[in-house]
C-alpha cells in the first residue's frame, strides 16, 4: 500500500501544530505521515474552529480507520475553563452531529493544555509554571519550542515519567498519547 497520512492534527494555531509536529517527529513518525488538518488554519477563535470541525474529522477517521492505520490528534487550549468542560463540549459536538461518542480504544487523542500550550512550552524550557497564569505567545518564534519538545518526545518514548512538578494537563496528555501511538 502506498504511504498515506497516518496522523491528522486538528489544532487551533501554528504554535500547537508545531508542538505536535516536533513531538511526533521526535517520537519517530516520518514527516510524510503527519498532516495539519485543513480546519486548523485561519485566525479568529481557534477553539471554536476545533470544536466545530472535530465531528468532521471524527467522521472521516471512522470512515477510513477500518482499512488504514490512522489516528486523530486534537489540541485545544483550556484557557480559563476546566479540562473536563472542554471534553464535554467535544462530546456534545459529536452528539449534535449524530455521531457516537469517542470509544475507549479509538485512535483519537485529545490534548487540552492548561492554561494554554505556552504553559507547557515554558515548563519544558525549565521554568516553574502554574496552570492559571497566562504565558506569552511566541508569535513568529513558534519554532523555538523544538529542542524541548523533541526532548519530551524522547523521554516519553523511553517511558520516562514526567517529573512531579509537570503541569497535570501535560501528564494527562502523555497518557493520552501512549494510548494511540
Amino acid at each position: 500500500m502506498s504511504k498515506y497520512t497516518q496522523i491528522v492534527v486538528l489544532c487551533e494555531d501554528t504554535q500547537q501544530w508545531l508542538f505536535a509536529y516536533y513531538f511526533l517527529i521526535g517520537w519517530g513518525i516520518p514527516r510524510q505521515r503527519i498532516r495539519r488538518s485543513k480546519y486548523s488554519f485561519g485566525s479568529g477563535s481557534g477553539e471554536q474552529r476545533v470544536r466545530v470541525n472535530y465531528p468532521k474529522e471524527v467522521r472521516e477517521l471512522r470512515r477510513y480507520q477500518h482499512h488504514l492505520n490512522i489516528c486523530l490528534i486534537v489540541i485545544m487550549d483550556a484557557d480559563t475553563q476546566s479540562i473536563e468542560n472542554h471534553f464535554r463540549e467535544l462530546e456534545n459536538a459529536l452528539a449534535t452531529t449524530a455521531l457516537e461518542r469517542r470509544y475507549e480504544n479509538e485512535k483519537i487523542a485529545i490534548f487540552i493544555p492548561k492554561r494554554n500550550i505556552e504553559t507547557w512550552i515554558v515548563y519544558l524550557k525549565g521554568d516553574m509554571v502554574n496552570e492559571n497564569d497566562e504565558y506569552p505567545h511566541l508569535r513568529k518564534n513558534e519554532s523555538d519550542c523544538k529542542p524541548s519538545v523533541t526532548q519530551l518526545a524522547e523521554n516519553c518514548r523511553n517511558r520516562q515519567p514526567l517529573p512531579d512538578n509537570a503541569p497535570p494537563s501535560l501528564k494527562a496528555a502523555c497518557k493520552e498519547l501512549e494510548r494511540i501511538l
Partner: protein
Amino acid sequence: MLKRIYIDNYKSLVNFELSLDSISLFVGANGSGKSAVFEVLQKIRDFALGKGKIADLFLPDNRTRWQTLSTQTFELEVERDTDSKYKYELAIEHDESGKNVHVKYERLWVNQNPLLKFESDEIQLYNDNYSEGPKYPYDGVLSAIQSITPRNDNKRLTWFKEQLERYIVTHPIPSLIEEESAFEVSSPSISLSNYVSWYRHLSQDQGMAYQLTSALRETLPGFQYFKFENVGRQQRLLMAYFQIEDNQSVGYRFSELSDGQRMLIALYTLLHLNQGGSQRKYILCIDEPENFVALPEIQPWLTELYDRCNNSGLQALLISHHPESLNYLLASPIGYWFERQNNGPTRVKQIQVDDEDGLPVSELIARGWLMNE
C-alpha cells in the same frame, strides 16, 4: 538575513520597498511584479559576483515603461547578526538612446559606515576599522564588489560578497534538467537545468549528501542513493537507484525520472543547503515550488522549510498560487499581497487573514475577496 529590498524604475517596481522575514510568501495576480523582485535579486547577485556586465544584465527595456527616468536604483539591507547591518546600494544610468548603460554609483555600508564606494570612475575601499583603504580608477563595466580579493583587513567586505553567493533564485523546470555534467558549478541556474553539475559540487559535502539521501528515502518510495557514472573524461551521468522487489536495485538516469520526482529531489536539495554547520546561510527565492509535486508531498516539504527557516538560519522567499501552500503558510503572518491598479506600479500589502467563518484563505484569494475589503 535579507531584511529589506528597495527597487525603483524596474518594470512595474517603482519606489518599491519590502521588509522581509525568515520566510516570506509573495501572493498576487499574474503580472503583479512578484517575479520581478526575484529577477532583481538574481541580477544584483550576478552583477556583484562578476557573472555579467552591467549592460548585459540591466537592459534599457527593463526600465518602467511609463516613466522617462534614466536612473534605476536598488538597495539591499542584510543583517549579519544583531550588531552588523549591511546596506548595498546600486544606481544605474541609461542614456537617452538606450544603447549605453553605466553604474552611477555602487556602495556598501555596514552600520552606516562605508566599506566600498564606486562613483565617477573611481573605487574607494575602506578597511574593517572603516579607515580609508586603497583608491583606484575603475570603469564600472563589472561590479566593484566582484573585484575585491580577500585580505585580513577587508573581512567585512568579503563576508558580504561571499554571502551573495548564497542567494539562490530559482523557478525549477524539471524537464530542463540535464542528466549529464561536464563540470561542477557552485550555483544553480534559474530553471535548475544544471542541477546535476550543481549536485556534483554539493555532494562533496558528505554530510549534506547523506542528509539529503535520508530525506529522499522518506520521500521517494524505494529511493536508495545517487551515483555518478563516468561517461567520458570529464562527463558524469547522475544515476538514481531505486529498490524493487527481491531487494534488487535498479539505476535510472536522472532524465528517466518523472518531472515530479525530479522536482522533489530539487526541492529537498534546496532544503538541505544549510547542512554542514556553515556560518553563511542560504537565501532561497523559489518561484512556484509546488509545480509538478503530488498533493501529499507539499505540506511535508513546507513544514520542513518552515522549520529550517526558523531553526537553521535558512531564509526563504516564495512565490505561490497553490492552495495547499497558501493555506499552510498564510496561517502565519508571512504573506505579501502584490497588486497593480490599471497596470500601474506594484503595490504590496501584508496579508492579514480574518476568516472566522472558515473559508480557506486560498478560496478567499480565488474569489478575489481577501485584499479587496
